[in-house]
């Protein structure tokens, strides 16, 4: 494991040289992630690693892509998706137009899950799905809609457990160990790089999903990001977080009402 002081030196340099601010990331996880890249790339001394990051922008980009956690899956936490399908999306379906933001979308599995549900509910044609991430490489994967075939069995199980009743295999074509999802699903998706640490609100949404992203941030940054979501959410819109995340340390509880016991909150006033 690298030392605390080394981690702080790296955070400083990455900010100073490239403007990416990891200063408010949770240290325990960040330290593990940086150590992982350090050893993975065969460095022996931290100053060599630091100097590589400083002098080689391509390498710094790779390092950032590697330290951000990009583990995701389709229909992760089926009961959460069941609630979206049965309660939240039908409510939004009464609107003429549905705007959804997947913040920290990683490789896009959750965005495709959403598109599948919207399609089955007859709502996809009037929806738009913005999907953003700090990491440009994962956005390319997300755009392609191509996911490893070995995961598909789990995804099909999740899909069924979340209330899906169609034949899941109708949504993709399997080839060379990969599943390519139908372009009907991605038609309404817009992918773009966005950094929750430093970028601002860019639209108004009816539903914002940001699942298992805030866990990597300290309390101050969590506060900033939840307020960014608040600024980006229409009144009566919904904010959905990961199953172990909460807004209770971040924003006035009178503004939001939790939806049953799910990690979904409705904005009840401006």
């Amino acid at each position: 494991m690298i030392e605390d002081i080394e981690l702080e030196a790296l955070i400083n340099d990455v900010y100073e040289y490239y403007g990416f601010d990891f200063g408010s990331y949770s240290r325990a996880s960040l330290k593990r992630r940086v150590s992982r890249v350090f050893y993975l790339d065969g460095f022996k001394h931290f100053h060599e690693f630091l100097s590589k990051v400083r002098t080689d922008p391509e390498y710094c980009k790779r390092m950032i892509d590697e330290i951000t956690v990009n583990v995701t899956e389709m229909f992760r936490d089926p009961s959460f998706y069941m609630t979206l399908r049965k309660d939240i999306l039908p409510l939004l379906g009464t609107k003429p137009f549905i705007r959804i933001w997947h913040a920290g979308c990683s490789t896009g599995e959750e965005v495709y899950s959403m598109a599948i549900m919207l399609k089955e509910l007859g709502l996809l044609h009037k929806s738009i799905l913005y999907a953003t991430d700090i990491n440009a490489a994962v956005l390319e994967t997300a755009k392609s809609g191509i996911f490893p075939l070995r995961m598909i069995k789990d995804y099909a199980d999740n899909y069924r457990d979340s209330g899906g009743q169609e034949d899941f295999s109708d949504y993709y074509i399997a080839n060379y160990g990969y599943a390519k999802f139908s372009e009907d699903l991605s038609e309404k998706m817009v992918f773009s790089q966005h950094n929750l640490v430093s970028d601002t609100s860019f639209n108004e949404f009816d539903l914002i999903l940001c699942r298992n992203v805030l866990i990597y941030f300290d309390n101050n940054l969590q506060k900033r990001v939840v307020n960014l979501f608040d600024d980006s959410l229409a009144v009566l819109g919904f904010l959905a977080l990961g199953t172990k995340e909460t807004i209770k340390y971040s924003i006035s509880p009178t503004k939001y009402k939790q939806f049953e016991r799910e990690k979904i909150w409705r904005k009840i006033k401006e």
Partner: protein
Amino acid sequence: MEENKRIIKDCKVVIIGGSAGSLQVLLQILPFIENPISFAIVIVVHRKQSDEQTLEALLALKSQVKVIDVEDKVALKPGFIYIAPSNYHLLFEKEKTLSLDTSEKINYSRPTIDVSFESAAEIYGSALVGILLSGSNSDGTIGMKAIQNAGGITVVQNPVSAEMSFMPNNAILHTQPDYVLNTEEILAFIKEINPD
């Protein structure tokens, strides 16, 4: 192991790791720990992804010490039991909070005992006691080493009393645990931590 028995004081956290066969052991220990305790107990066990809340519910029902439902950045305080949620790695922050991480599974597991033990050792050093229970893989050994290196105390369940002996055996083989104890002895050991 009476010969090296010593009084453990100034303990802030007792972290317990286990896999297959560890639930029964926990159920023979936790319900018999009396309130109040002067340290926090953190439990990291391998569990099915679908097992969302059943372990918390079961232990909350049986135990006198209050079980906290771990959410990201929850404060880690003496007097409570914390259980690592399924499908996340559990980490310790300097601010004395617990944080979560969804990065890749390690040893086919998330949570991983090694990850939580290493992280706890870093923050709590000699104020940490690590206990490793029954299990059928090698997770936990690296974590036990980290606890020892940081000056903490390590306890391994006696493999003879473990339903699955691989995990405790592996830790005994690769580290020199301070204590190797059977279930009742582990309970007695915990009760004697931080005497008045």
